[in-house]
């Protein structure tokens, strides 16, 4: 008898181990997908980076001048040059208005540039040009939901699903929207439906994992990610071992749990596969900064700001990176950009305050104005964060403000021309009249939950 069931049982491990290999990489030249590539086939660079996916039409389908413009736009995108990419995709669209590929790609670029209305218009053009262009329908719905029009997005995608009830992409897309709306039960159901329609549909697998992560069902998220990335032995091999988004989610879970080495590997692998995956870039850069590696963090964070010029966290981290590298003018610019994108970012004020307090000199500032700015920024941070720092954050804000004020007092008592250095190495009390040192060190209790 030849029985084709799993002879090996799949057992859920209590703890998950990740045996991952990852490294950075420079990807530029794109290997064109085969003409008959199925929907969802990754588009790779020669170095192994995934820079896109094939749509249901199996590529852009463009020819002649339109194709040339499109490919120029594509190259610009790969370099993170979104302005040129936008221009080239617009040209390609005008040369072949019937193709959905240029307006879809233009929509992606516009969305990254913060032109949400323009992006939605482009997505609409794409699925108007080709009513089977599901990727652009999904992008449109997600863009609506992201802009706060969840109801409209839901109506739109439900209507499309009614017309195409057997589309795994639309089902998975609907699942993602339900997940964003915190309707986790429906999200799971829809994603599973998508997998029943196409057991190999990667987006649905990732949606399931991401929804469990959002619902804080981390054990289930980890099981799902193990199924995608590692599999459960020979009985159930990895479903998509290099999936960038799955790597990103697993990296986030590891990072939260303090498993920093494996988190870093996952973020690196995600970025290698999807150089445009901004969240992975930001997390990778942020972790490198935490490890004191500002030099390696810089290109990653610069790439993040190129691919998502409107992402406040990318600018915040890049600003911090420049601060640590002593590039104070650049840092200031990035912090200002971060705050212009998200004025609720308290950490930007902290970083600005720290920079003004600790930098030897910041161009365009007198010592007095520098320390005044430090105090102002640090106090803004303290006001914004509330009476206590967020859980797990150690900001020493009271100490920093006290130090800034002490420095300000010192400056006021020093004749113009600069403050003398503190009583370096004297070991004795500060010069007469100097404010007292900070309060006696009273370290916090060691415990943390």
């Amino acid at each position, binding site marked *: 008898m030849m029985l084709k069931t799993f002879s090996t049982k799949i057992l859920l491990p209590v703890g998950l181990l990740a045996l991952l290999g990852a490294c950075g990489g420079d990807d530029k030249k794109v290997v064109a*997908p085969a003409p008959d590539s*199925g929907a969802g086939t990754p588009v790779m660079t020669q170095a192994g980076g995934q820079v896109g996916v094939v749509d249901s039409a199996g590529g852009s389908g463009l020819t002649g001048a339109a194709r040339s413009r499109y490919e120029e736009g594509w190259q610009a995108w790969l370099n993170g040059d979104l302005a040129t990419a936008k221009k080239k995709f617009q040209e390609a669209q005008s040369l072949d208005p019937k193709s959905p590929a240029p307006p879809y790609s233009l929509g992606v670029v516009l969305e990254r540039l913060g032109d949400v209305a323009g992006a939605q218009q482009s997505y609409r053009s794409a699925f108007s040009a080709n009513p089977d262009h599901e990727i652009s329908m999904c992008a449109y719905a997600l863009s609506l939901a992201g802009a706060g029009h969840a109801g409209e997005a839901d109506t739109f995608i439900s209507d499309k699903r009614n017309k195409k009830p057997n589309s795994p992409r639309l089902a998975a897309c609907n699942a993602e929207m339900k997940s964003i709306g915190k309707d986790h039960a429906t999200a799971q159901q829809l994603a599973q439906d998508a*997998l029943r329609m196409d057991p190999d549909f990667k987006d649905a697998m990732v949606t399931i994992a991401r929804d469990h992560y959002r619902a804080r*069902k981390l054990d289930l998220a980890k099981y799902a990610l193990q199924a995608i990335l590692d599999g459960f032995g020979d009985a159930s091999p990895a479903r998509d071992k290099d999936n960038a988004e799955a790597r990103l989610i697993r990296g986030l879970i590891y990072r939260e749990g303090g498993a920093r080495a494996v988190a870093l590997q996952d973020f690196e692998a995600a970025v290698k596969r999807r150089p445009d995956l901004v969240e992975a870039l930001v997390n990778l850069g942020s972790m490198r900064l*935490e490890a004191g590696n500002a030099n390696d963090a810089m290109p990653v964070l610069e790439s993040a700001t190129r691919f998502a010029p409107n992402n406040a966290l990318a600018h915040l981290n890049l600003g911090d990176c420049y601060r640590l590298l002593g590039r104070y003018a650049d840092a200031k610019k990035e912090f200002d950009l971060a705050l212009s994108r998200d004025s609720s970012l308290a950490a930007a004020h902290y970083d600005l305050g720290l920079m003004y307090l600790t930098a030897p000199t910041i161009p365009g500032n007198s010592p007095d104005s520098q320390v005044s700015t430090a105090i102002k920024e640090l106090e803004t941070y303290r006001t914004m964060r509330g009476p206590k720092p967020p859980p797990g954050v150690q900001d020493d804000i009271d100490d920093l403000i006290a130090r800034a004020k002490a420095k300000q007092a010192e400056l006021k008592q020093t004749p113009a021309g600069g403050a003398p250095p503190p009583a370096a190495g004297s070991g004795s009390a500060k010069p007469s009249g100097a404010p007292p040192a900070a309060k006696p060190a009273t370290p916090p209790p060691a415990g943390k939950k």
Partner: protein
Amino acid sequence: MAAREDFVRVASSPSIPRAIEYRYYVAEQLFLYGHWDEAKPRFESLWREQCGVTAYGHQAWLRLVTMAAKERDADRALALSEAVDPKSGGKSCDAKGEAEYANPLRLEAGLEKARKKLAEAESSPTPAKSTPAWREAALAYERADNPADARAEAKLNAAYAWRKAGEGKKAALLYERVIAETEVGEDGKVSASTSAKEANAHAYDGLLALHHETFDYASLAATNARLARSPLATESRRREAAMQALLVDAGLGDRDAMVEMHGVHGSLHPSANERIAADYRVSVFEYDVWAAADHTARDQARTRATRSLVAFVRAHERETSALLVEASYRIAMLKRDAREPDANTWLRQTVQRRDNSAAGEARKAPHAEHAAEAALLLIDEEMAAFDSPTRHSYGGTPREILRKYRDNAKVAVALDERLEREVVRRYGSAAPEWVLAAVARQGALFDTLRTGLYNATKVTYFDAQGEAVVASLRKTNPDRAVELEDVAKDTWRSSKKKELEDADTIMVRRYATAAHEARRLDIHNNPVIARALGRLVYFTEILGDSAMERYVTSTPDPSTKGATKLAYTSSMYTSFLRVDPPATQPQTTNTLLP
């Protein structure tokens, strides 16, 4: 054979009984000696001629069926079967004799065809495009299904092929049918045959795999729960299924289902290790609920979590599992959160349970980290008393100040040694985070000590007797009085400077060791180490770069076991200081099309 062939040739009528017997004999000899190509046409003509006439017709048909089966020629076997079935338009030669073979033959032939379809589907070079092949295989197996097949090969493989074709619902229905048919036979009793048990096990494995494939964890838990109660499964398989169901139910947050499976698991004779693992998962469930609870539900959740974990520890009091370290640690954290007086008892238990575990898991991370943290917290209360500002508030004469300061220094040294003994050396590399936190805390002791002295500015340079002398001199010999006052001040400043330098040396060494090692080991977000970083930045301003450089570059580098010293660059600790930006949230990010 040749003589019999001759006889057949010369016999005028083929109906002569001996001639038919000889024809069959010759065909039989060719069959027996493997000359099937020659045997087949002879048996074919005998079957056609003698079917329903003599017994040789049925015998010839049987030989033809045998050869088709041996050659795995399913089409031929099926054609022969149908040729003698009047329902299919055939002619029966020997109804009774054919019945014995026809049904199994049809079943086997159908299965054989289905197997070929399955093999074709499996060998498809483009898996993404193999769906039609899987579908054909599934349909072929469904056609070959026969209730007489106790092994349920057709149903199981049809289910497998439907799974591969993306028809999960069809696959699930077939697996469910096999489970239902094997667990309760036609007579309503549980089947005891080996075939039925094997089919049942395969159906469960297939169904569980299907749920895995579709990431359907609710169904996965439910199927495991059924398997845990299956009358056909072995006890070990049922126990394993109960544990799996328990784990998934816990992940789903389904407390009732988890507790129910815990009961089933416990009734299936688990080993001590299996039992403690199951008990711990159930007891820690309430801790997870507490950790995720908002402030309105927090107190109630904490009470439940504490009760659950304490019950776990009591139930396994005499065991040495690493899970007892975990449970004790979590109880201690819950009790500290509620400021309950016996929190330290549980901290001590955490340390002791780790110590009692002679080897193995409890001595490794994360258990060792939790024990190290507990050990540090146990000393922390005494250190908090030492840190009290009133203890380091100095006044009076230099002698009085220095006496009090040196008394405090002795306490600092004693606490420093205790931290070294009870945390740093005890846990070493097994618990790097909390060992470095302990090193940072050692630095904080000398920080408190030196800061108190640093702030001591209300100094009475002379005692009552000396003050009287100086007061007298101010009237009689003011220069001498000033001279004495200057000497007293210089002596005080010099003594203070020396004491501060001694304390600074130890303080900066400890802080720097913690900071540098934490960075090397990528340890982040520990509040004690973060505090040390802040103090290093502060002291860089207070003491100046050159003093910091002197202190840091005389500190042995733990990464080289002291063979080299730590490196220092100007204002380097400023770069260590940062506050974490908000966490990102994963979203679907649209990407481009080629």
